[in-house]
Structure formats: structure tokens, C-alpha cells
């Protein structure tokens, strides 16, 4: 890669921190050749082969004729008011008969159209040139104002709607305006590291960049500074990717985007491990973790082993509050369908499986499945969680047929097949994991559940589930899934006599992968359910240990946006209390859950019970889908 990489970027204020290190010649001076252009030109330059990488609007990324990749970790986004994408008018939104759109930004146009339709409104949309947009506001004609112009409009219009804010309150996720994108393979992990370094330097100088811009534009310096500090977020974390995915999915559904695009990333460099500080006091460590500072593995072990329960819980509660300041606790209505219990893995902790050929072994027929799917739709379900045994009778083609059938007949998302099942299919069909996943995605797979992780430590796996995939395989399958733009969850089952180091090691593997892929939406843990299994209960699996593990996970998994509480295994009472120990999601109003139910847990609660638990803990319940996007 000796050739210089041609970068093209917008010159809006919100992009300056991203390009700062490069512009200043502090980063990649030998490697990058940076040019500035209008937003729509950034994508065109990449399409025309005039640039290798463009800092382009998310809509341009999605509309690209070729599949592009996104640079991990870097984005231009907002979580709430953005100030530079505003709908203005002399009459309220509901009374606008026309809306003038700025031709320069396709993303903002799509957002305005989506939100307008979402309110049941159908004004005429007319395109106007960027420099004439403010003058287009006359009578009942409103206008969409984008870019730095939005910062100057104070008092000019009677009605101003911040579309960043409207999106966030509607969907509960950030809005992503722009990303670095280019053709697969154009950037190396070293390039990614340089681009991330450029942003890191820019973020350090945000206030200065904002003030300098304001002086150039003859406005109050505080305006530019606050904009970069408070309105714009430059990270592309799991939440931003979910937000972008939600936007692209909704746009596709509304006919504004021809293809359904996922956000697919370039490979990221391996994350740096945090250096343990010189033995800070427990109180300091907890305060740092509550403030979002990264814990080292040893610090995690120390907190797990030594921190008093309430201190750990309060730190986790503070962290949860910082990540979810809206006091919302989400839940989903879906159905767990265990399509087969025939399984050759014979894990000692499982009471669900039967050997293939056993009189109690089953595989659900199409009719049985259809019945369950119909019920799911009738009960307001939006998704099915499909998990089953490792059944040698079922081929990849079986799943492809099944998914196509489901997609053709039911409006349900398919959250299906744990890494164990996917890795088995790859062996059975002698195909790479990526190919298996690609075929499943083409057939309708929407996301991958994080089951079969147990404890990601091969010493423990050999003891409790010797035939299950190794810890490395589990991680690799998830890496491949994330690489295809699939969102997945991650789980942990504890109580197998694992050491604190092994437990933290599990969390650490998840955190490292998430640093690279940002593909996990949520983490869910529970304790081993002993009853009816062949494994004796040798460990403390009570509610207090669960709360401790959950709180620790909230602090350690600083790059996981959501922690589900597991009322299905721990009971609604513990699940509710867990919302004060770091949890921000109540999981699923499940219609059935065979695997845990066979091991003696038979909790069943309705959506209204879930909402009562959530309200009782002091939160506002909202329904979500797998992306944690509000859908109520």
C-alpha cells in the first residue's frame, strides 16, 4: 500500500474533528491525500473512482451501486437535538402544505420525508438550491435547513423542529449523518487506526475548532463550541450502527431506498488493552467505572471479588443512567421456538435435548411452526427466536427453505441460530462460516442470538459441554456475522464453578470483539439452572450473585449499549430489581421457552406484567425490536 489514499470529505463544521489530525498534518501525512467537497460529491467521487474513501452521507452510502464498507468507530451522529438539520416554517408542521428541501443533502431529505410521513402528513416536497432555502419559507411552505446555516436561524421562523431530536424520541437510537466509506479492501487496519487517531486528536480540540469556526463566520464562539461538544457525537458505537440500520430499514420500507442495506465495516485494528492503574482504592475504581472509564481485567476481578454489593450496584446504576438518561426500560414481544430437541452435543447442564432417534426427540413440522408463527403475530410479536439442538438430519437447505417460507408468510423478524448451530452447519456442509451466514441472510435471517456462549473458556467448556464449539469458534462466528452487517446479542451462563478470572475473561473476549465490530446490541447473563440436569449444583447461583455479576458486566462491558435482565431464568422479582443493578431491558414477553422450562423454571408473564414491573422500578416501558429501536 505505498500509493496514497485519496480521501474526500465535507467541510461542514461537524466534520472538522474527523479530519482534524489529517488536515493539520499530524496523522498519515505520507498516506492520505485529503480534498473537500459538497456532501453529495463525496459519494460521487468514490463511485467515479476519483477518491478511495469518502466522508459521505449515510443515504449516499446506502444508495451506492456497489457495496461499500464503513470505517469502524468514526461517524457524525447525534443522540437528541442536532441543530443543523431543522425543519422551519411560519406555520406548524401539521399545517405545512409544502416543504422545500435542500438539494445538497439526501440523508436529511430522507429523514424529513420519513418523519413527516410518520406523523401522517403528506405535504408536497420541492427541491431548492442550498443558498436559497431560507427564502423559500413563505406562508404554509416550510423548509428543511441543513448544515451550518441551521446554527444561524435563531428567531427567524415561528416554528422550528430539530429532526435529530425528533428521530431520537421516535426511535430511541442515535441518528447517523455521515460515515467514512469506500470499496471493500481499500483501507488496511493501519489506515483505520490512522483515521481513528485523526479523530482522537480532533476530539481533544473540539472546543477550539468550534470557536475558530464561529469567529470565521462572525457568530458567538460559544455557539460553535457547544455544537461540537453537546450536539454532535463522533463515535460509531453499537448504538449508532443500530440507529443507522434502523434508518436504512425504515427508508427502504417507505420506498425511499431501493435496496435494504446493512452497515458493514472494514476490519478494525486489535484494541489496546487498558493498563491497570497502580492499585487505586475500591471507591476510586468504582467511581471511575461509574463515570465510564475502562476497567482492566484485573480491576474487574478485583471489583467482582471485593466490592460491596450496594457499591457495585450503585456504580452500575449510575452507568446505566448515563447510557440511558431517558429512564426508559425496553422489552420485546417475541416467541422462542425450539424447532428441534434432537441434539448430539449432550451437554451435561442441558435437560432439553434428546438424542436423535429417541422416542421423545422431535422436529416441528411446517404446520406446527405455522401455527406458532400465526399465534405470535396475533399476540403482537415482532420476531421469533429460533434455536434448537444440533440435529444431524437438518441441512443448510432445510434452514434456507424454512426462512424463505417464514419470510414469505409472516411479518416476523428471524433472530435465529446460535454460533453453535451455525458452526455445525459449516462443518456439516463443508462450507466456510461466512458462506453459511450469507446463504441464511439471503434466505431471510435478520440477526443472530448469542446463545451457546456459556463461559467462553475452554477449560470450562471441556467440562460441561465438551462437544460444543470452542470459545474461539464462538467468537469467530460472531465476528463473521458482524462483518456481514448482522446485529447479534451475547450471553453468559455462570455458576459452573468458574473462577473470577474465567468469568471476567468471558466479558473481556466480548468487549474486545465489540471494540472491533460494534456488532453486539445487548448482553444477557443468567445463572445455571440445575434442576433436572446431570450437573450437580456446586456453585452459588442465587439472586444476589446474579445481581453482582450483572452490575459488574454493566461496568466492564463499556461498549455494550444494552443489558437485558433475565426474568425468564431468575424470575420477574429478581429481574425487576436487576433494573437497578445495571439492566435497561426486560427481555421478552416470551410466549414459550422450552430449554429453560425443562430445567424447572416456569415463569410466564404477560406484556402488561412486564410493564408493571418496569413502572414499579421507576422506569418508562417501551416496546422495541432486536435493534433496540422503539416500535410503539
Amino acid at each position: 500500500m505505498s500509493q496514497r489514499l485519496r480521501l474526500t470529505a465535507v467541510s461542514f463544521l461537524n466534520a472538522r474533528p474527523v479530519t482534524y489530525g489529517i488536515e493539520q498534518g499530524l496523522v498519515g501525512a505520507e498516506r492520505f491525500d485529503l480534498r473537500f467537497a459538497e456532501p453529495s460529491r463525496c459519494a460521487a467521487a468514490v463511485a467515479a473512482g476519483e477518491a478511495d474513501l469518502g466522508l459521505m452521507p449515510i443515504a449516499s452510502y446506502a444508495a451506492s451501486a456497489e457495496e461499500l464498507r464503513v470505517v469502524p468507530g468514526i461517524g457524525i451522529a447525534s443522540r437528541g437535538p442536532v441543530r443543523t438539520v431543522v425543519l422551519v416554517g411560519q406555520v406548524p408542521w401539521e399545517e405545512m402544505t409544502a416543504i422545500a428541501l435542500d438539494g445538497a443533502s439526501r440523508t436529511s431529505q430522507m429523514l424529513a420525508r420519513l418523519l413527516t410521513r410518520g406523523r401522517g402528513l403528506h405535504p408536497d416536497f420541492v427541491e431548492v438550491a442550498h443558498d436559497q432555502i431560507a427564502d423559500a419559507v413563505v406562508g404554509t411552505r416550510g423548509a428543511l435547513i441543513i448544515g451550518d446555516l441551521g446554527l444561524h436561524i435563531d428567531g427567524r421562523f415561528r416554528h422550528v423542529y430539530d429532526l435529530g431530536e425528533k428521530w431520537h424520541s421516535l426511535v430511541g437510537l442515535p441518528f447517523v449523518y455521515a460515515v467514512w466509506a469506500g470499496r471493500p479492501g481499500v483501507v488496511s487496519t493501519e489506515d483505520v487506526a490512522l483515521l481513528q487517531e485523526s479523530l482522537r486528536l480532533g476530539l481533544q480540540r473540539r472546543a477550539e475548532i468550534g470557536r475558530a469556526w464561529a469567529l470565521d463566520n462572525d457568530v458567538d464562539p460559544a455557539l460553535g463550541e457547544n455544537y461540537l461538544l453537546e450536539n454532535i457525537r463522533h463515535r460509531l458505537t453499537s448504538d449508532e450502527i443500530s440507529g443507522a440500520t434502523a434508518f436504512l430499514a425504515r427508508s427502504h420500507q417507505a420506498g425511499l431506498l431501493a435496496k435494504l442495506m446493512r452497515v458493514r465495516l472494514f476490519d478494525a485494528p486489535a484494541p489496546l488493552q487498558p493498563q491497570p492503574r497502580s492499585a487505586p482504592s475500591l471507591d476510586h475504581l468504582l467511581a471511575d467505572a461509574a463515570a465510564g472509564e475502562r476497567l482492566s481485567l484485573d480491576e474487574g476481578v478485583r471489583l467482582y471479588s471485593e466490592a460491596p454489593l450496594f457499591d457495585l450496584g450503585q456504580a452500575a446504576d449510575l452507568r446505566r443512567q448515563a447510557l440511558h438518561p431517558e429512564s426508559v426500560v425496553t422489552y420485546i414481544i417475541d416467541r422462542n421456538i425450539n424447532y428441534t430437541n434432537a441434539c448430539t452435543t449432550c451437554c451435561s447442564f442441558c435437560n432439553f435435548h434428546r438424542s436423535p432417534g429417541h422416542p421423545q426427540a422431535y422436529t416441528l413440522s411446517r404446520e406446527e411452526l405455522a401455527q406458532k408463527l400465526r399465534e405470535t403475530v396475533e399476540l403482537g410479536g415482532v420476531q421469533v427466536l429460533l434455536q434448537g439442538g444440533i440435529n444431524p438430519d437438518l441441512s443448510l437447505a432445510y434452514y434456507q427453505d424454512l426462512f424463505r417460507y417464514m419470510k414469505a408468510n409472516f411479518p416476523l423478524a428471524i433472530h435465529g441460530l446460535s454460533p453453535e448451530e451455525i458452526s455445525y452447519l459449516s462443518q456439516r456442509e463443508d462450507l466456510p462460516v461466512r458462506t453459511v451466514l450469507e446463504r441464511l441472510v439471503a434466505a431471510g435471517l435478520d440477526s443472530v442470538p448469542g446463545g451457546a456462549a456459556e463461559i467462553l473458556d475452554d477449560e470450562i467448556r471441556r467440562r460441561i459441554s465438551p462437544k460444543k464449539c470452542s470459545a474461539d469458534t464462538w467468537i469467530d462466528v460472531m465476528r463473521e456475522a458482524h462483518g456481514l452487517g448482522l446485529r447479534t446479542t451475547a450471553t453468559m451462563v455462570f455458576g459452573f464453578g468458574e473462577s473470577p478470572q474465567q468469568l471476567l475473561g468471558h466479558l473481556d473476549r466480548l468487549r474486545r470483539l465489540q471494540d472491533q465490530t460494534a456488532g453486539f446490541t445487548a448482553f444477557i447473563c443468567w445463572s445455571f439452572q440445575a434442576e433436572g440436569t446431570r450437573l450437580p449444583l456446586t456453585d452459588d447461583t442465587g439472586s444476589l450473585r446474579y445481581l453482582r455479576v450483572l452490575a459488574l458486566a454493566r461496568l466492564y462491558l463499556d461498549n455494550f449499549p444494552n443489558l437485558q435482565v433475565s426474568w425468564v431464568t431468575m424470575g420477574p422479582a429478581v429481574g425487576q430489581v436487576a433494573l437497578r443493578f445495571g439492566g435497561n431491558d426486560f427481555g421478552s414477553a416470551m410466549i414459550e421457552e422450552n430449554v429453560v422450562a425443562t430445567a424447572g423454571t416456569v415463569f410466564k408473564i404477560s406484556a402488561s406484567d412486564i410493564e408493571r414491573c418496569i413502572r414499579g422500578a421507576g422506569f418508562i416501558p417501551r416496546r422495541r425490536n432486536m435493534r433496540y429501536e422503539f416500535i410503539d
Partner: protein
Amino acid sequence: MTLASISEKVSAGIPLSFDDGVALFREPDLLKLGALANQVREQRHGDRTTFNRNLHINPSNLCVAGCPLCSFSRRSPEQPGAYTLSLSQAWDKLKARFAAGDPVTEVHVVGGLNDSLPFDYYVELLAGLKRLQPALHIKAFSAVEIFHLHKLFHLEVREVLRRLVAAGLGSLPGGGAEIFAPRVRQRICPNKCNAEEWLDVHRTAHELGLRSNCTMLYGTIETIEERVQHLLRLRALQDETGGFQTFIPLAFHPDNNALSQLPAPTAVDDLRVCAVSRLLLHNIPHIKAYWVSLGIKTAQTAQWFGADDLDGTVQEEKIYHLAGSEAPQSLTPAEIVHLIRAAGRTPVERDTLYNVVAQGQALPAGPSPVRGQP
């Protein structure tokens, strides 16, 4: 009334006021509330959690009170499920426990307000249990039942108690207090004795040298203010007599009764009541997390929210199970020991009067798996 100012009062040993109590119930930060209650709990009891080996006998479910809150009672012997134990049937329950090698140190006797049994039935019931096991402690008859006997047999409350003590009564359980506010009693238990009468039975018992427990049923239609008033009335009697050993918050369970339109309280409510009780009732030594009412897991969690007792092994609990409790019917001593250890506390077996019966190595060996985790 901030939590910080309440915390200062707690540290200085100043009794909390009515307004403090209301503020605690409204405190949004459950963990801060819990940590404060836990501080008081650990100052008093360290990390010990006590339990006992006990047997519940409910002699009859025939009851003239007809309380809307109740799932246990029957109005007439003809109703399905109505029963009255003969004396030998009642005694056999105790015999069976000892015969099975599962001895108890306490029998807990409560039942309906039956208007057809003679006074001798109650006397003989206790005397017979005592004859079987002279060392047994009998904790029997809630204040509501004592008051019923007083009315039915035209005997002074003091006289009712004196005769029962002579037959073997050791202490009074705390049931029937519900919520003292007349507005609430009128709706949930209109025919039970009123607050003054309930308190007077306990005052008389304390004067006779009996210890007793006290309770509050929460989660029906009471307001926060009514809860606080209730707790403060208990505290005021305790200031007079010092006779209460334990306060037991009781969660309302809505199945199979006339209030089943009400939702059951959630775990956060349970823990909050537990913690606020610990903080308000500075003069009552123990707070019990009654696992039959709370479910095992919340009873464990409650050991960090002010409670220092888990009740007992409890065989044949009927009242809560008929109201929909999903807790097991009973626990073995080894299971209780395991549950307490799993909650991060040190188990101690006690008798009814909180004398230590066994601790450390003398306790049944754990851990043992817990059946059917609720």
C-alpha cells in the same frame, strides 16, 4: 426531607418522623434506600440471618369475618374446601413431624374466626401440643382471633390470654393488623377488630409478659401516608411496652379473593417496604422477610434491604398459597441454610424468642440444591 438528612438522623440515632417515612417511601433511588437500611441492619445484627424450625397449623378455615382480602376462609361448613381439624388431627401434624425425624421448635397456629368451636377446643389444642412436646414454643392466635374469643365467650381479653397461657401459649403472632387506617379496613377487612382493639390485645399480652410480633399488609388500596401511620402506631406501642420482637411486612397476594382485580406488589415494592420498616421501626429488634409471602429470591435479596430473619421451615402453609404464592410449601433446614449463605449472610438457627439454637458447624450441611426456584 432528603435522604442525606434522614441518613444523618439515622446515624445519630434520632427517631424518624412521619415526613421522613413518607420521603423514604417516595425515594426514587432504591439502592441508596437499601444501603441505608442495610447499614442499620448490619449495626444491629452483623451479617447474621436467623431462621427457625416451625410448623404451621391452621385449625379451621371457617370464618365469620368474610374479609375481601382473604383467599383462605370459608363462610359455612357446606362450602367446598371448608374444614375444621379435630384436636387429634391437629396434634397428629406435630407428631408426624417428629416421627419423620424433622423436629420443630415452634408451632405457629392461626385460623379463621370460627363461631362454633367451644373455648375448650383452643385450650385443649395448645395443651395437647404441649403434652406431646413440652419444650415446644407455641405462637398462636393473632390479635384478631383473641379479640374474637373475647367477644364470643364474653371474657376479658386479659382473661382469654391468661387461660391460653395456662394451656401453653408462648407468644402471639403478628397477623391481622393489615392496615390500621379505618378507610382501608372498611374496604379490605370490614369485620375485623379495629386498630385500637388490635393494639390493645398486644398491649395486654405484653403486660402479661408475652412477646409478640407485628405485621403490615401492603399492596391493596393503602396510601403511603397510611403505611407510615401504621408503622408509627406500632412504634408507639413498642415505646410503651417493648413487647414486639419482630415486624413482618406482608405482601398482598391477589389470587382467589375478592380483591383479585388489584395487581400484586412487585419486588421493588417489597424491598422498599422492608427497608423503610427497618429505618422507621428503630425500637423493634427484628425485620422478617417472610419467604412464603415474598418468594425465596426476594426474601434473599431482602436480607440486604433491612431484613435479618427468614422465618422458618414452615410446613403446610395454606393462607398465602391459596392466594397464589408460588413459593414451595416448605423448606428443609439445609435448604434454608443454603439460601441464607447464597444471599451472602451467615445463617443462625434461633428459637421463637431469638435464642440461638445452632450456628456454624452445628447447622445442617449445605449447599443443597433448592427445589423449584420461585
